[in-house]
């Protein structure tokens, strides 16, 4: 049956543009293409032209939005975008620099088949431009706080505003950190194409740190909506898996990091109840855990068990693996969890790790043992004032029968709770701790 008589769009053939069977673009196509194209074109044109590159890519995406909605999607959307972005960039740079050295090296692309992947694959070298860009920003010259911002903007395609929402920073702050990263990179002239295997090996720990940070922001953030948090975790995993596909990234730490990210991520949907409130670990419906992703996590865990170095990622992966293995909260091997925390504390001493060890010890050996871990321990101010510290103490004291201490810690926890969802959770978890002398309700 013929569709709309006048469906003529100039330059199109007789294919039915409005067919319901037209394949969709993959999820996050626009954002991921942004990252890919910026990486490819930055390598070609040089980091000093990063701003022009980003503009060229942005314009290409806008043109795609306008053209594809009317004329339909091209057969090779990625190639289409590359051609348009490349041509945008060349004409922009031609305007800026009459000497056109760049033009001679990179003439405008006219055929869609001119691929951006003409890289020689030398062993030990990073062949993927996106990965190169990740290593480029893990530069000592770029401040630690600027690196993840640069990664989220340039590799993941988030806007300044989107980053500020996700990391609880002001837009001005994000913009400042981004500018700092860009100017340091410009000044230090380490081009993506010039990274040696030695450079990459030296920067690998920083790469791991960025991915861990982005993942943690997504995983632990209790304030923002679930899809946003999930998206950050997915980005960290995506980049981690890219890293693991290249020789330079194939280290035990990378696999351990991927293990812990996948294992945590597999349980994320179970952490919220139907009304959006938070659920305790023992309340979570384990049937909701993503078993496939969990298998991926365990797979990476196995691959991480090589070599003689045991990183904090190994310890953390070990902890979450114990939780994932257990059929129920009661069947968790708490002794193993405590072991992992001990190892973690040795590698990365931290008051939070000690506090978590106290919780795990209490599950394993009873609340008195848990309190003993904290005995004589003076947490730093920030932790001492946090709701978590108060909640842990309240719970342990309650289970030991110290009702007054439990009640006063409970009150401190509720006062310090950063959101209504957490407050509700605390009320539930720390119930029955009112001091005996309080008046009857």
């Amino acid at each position, binding site marked *: 049956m013929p*569709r*709309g*008589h*006048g*469906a*003529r*769009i100039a330059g199109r053939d007789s294919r039915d543009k*409005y067919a*319901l069977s037209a394949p969709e*673009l993959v999820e*996050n*196509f*626009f*954002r991921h*293409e*942004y990252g890919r194209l910026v990486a490819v074109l930055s390598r070609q044109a040089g980091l000093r032209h990063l701003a022009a590159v980003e503009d060229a890519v*942005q314009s290409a*995406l*806008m043109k*795609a*939005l*306008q053209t*594809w*909605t*009317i*004329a339909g999607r091209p057969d090779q959307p990625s190639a289409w975008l590359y051609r348009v972005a490349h041509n945008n960039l060349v004409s922009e740079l031609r305007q800026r620099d009459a000497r056109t050295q760049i033009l001679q090296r990179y003439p405008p692309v006219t055929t869609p088949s001119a691929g951006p992947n003409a890289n020689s694959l030398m062993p030990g070298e990073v062949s993927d431009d996106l990965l190169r860009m990740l290593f480029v920003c893990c530069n000592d010259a770029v401040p630690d706080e600027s690196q993840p911002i640069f990664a989220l903007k340039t590799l993941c*395609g*988030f*806007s300044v*505003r*989107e980053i500020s929402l996700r990391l609880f920073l002001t837009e001005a702050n994000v913009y400042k950190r981004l500018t700092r990263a860009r100017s340091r990179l410009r000044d230090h002239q380490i081009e993506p194409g010039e990274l040696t295997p030695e450079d990459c090996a030296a920067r690998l720990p920083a790469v791991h740190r960025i991915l861990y940070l982005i993942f943690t922001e997504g995983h632990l953030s209790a304030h923002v909506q679930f899809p946003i948090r999930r998206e950050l975790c997915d980005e960290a995993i995506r980049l981690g898996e890219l890293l693991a596909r290249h020789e330079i990234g194939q280290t035990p730490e990378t696999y351990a990091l991927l293990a812990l990210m996948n294992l945590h991520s597999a349980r994320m949907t179970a952490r919220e109840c139907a009304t959006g409130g938070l659920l305790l670990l023992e309340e979570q419906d384990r049937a909701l855990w993503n078993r496939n992703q969990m298998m991926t996590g365990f797979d990476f865990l196995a691959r991480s068990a090589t070599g003689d170095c045991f990183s904090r990622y190994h310890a953390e992966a070990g902890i979450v693996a114990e939780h994932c293995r257990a059929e129920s909260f009661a069947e968790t091997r708490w002794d193993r969890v405590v072991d992992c925390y001990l190892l973690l504390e040795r590698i990365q001493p931290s008051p939070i790790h000690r506090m978590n060890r106290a919780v795990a010890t209490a599950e394993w050996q009873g609340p008195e043992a848990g309190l003993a871990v904290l005995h004589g321990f003076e947490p730093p101010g920030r932790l001492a004032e946090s709701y978590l510290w108060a909640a842990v103490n309240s719970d342990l004291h309650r289970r030991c029968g110290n009702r007054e201490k439990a009640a006063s810690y409970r009150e401190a926890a509720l006062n310090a709770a950063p959101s209504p969802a957490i407050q509700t959770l605390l009320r539930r978890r720390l119930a029955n701790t009112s001091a005996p002398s309080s008046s009857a309700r």
Partner: protein
Amino acid sequence: MPSKKYLCIQRSQSGNCEHEPPSPAQMEAMYAKFNAWKEQFQDNISDLGGRLAAGGKVVSSDGATDGPFVEAKEIIGGYMILSAENLEEAADVARQCPGVTAPGSQVEIREISTP
């Protein structure tokens, strides 16, 4: 099949400074919304038309000048042709087209009378 055709002309205020350009994530959402609108109203879409370029010509029996009219307060940004049974239906479809009724922009809908 709807019998009448309607020309839809999109206009926006001239001097309307560009808002913050959309982020890739926003573009993705706009793309999805537009495709959903296209699918929903495919029987009403005769010609998706397109945007109109900024320059042009104005021709009359006196000759031709560069156009468009410089004193126009409103800039015509684009057009499309819808099929509908009546004006209300055409207006209803046009109103739901994403991007068409953004702040500061509006659509004029005129029936194309055919003999």
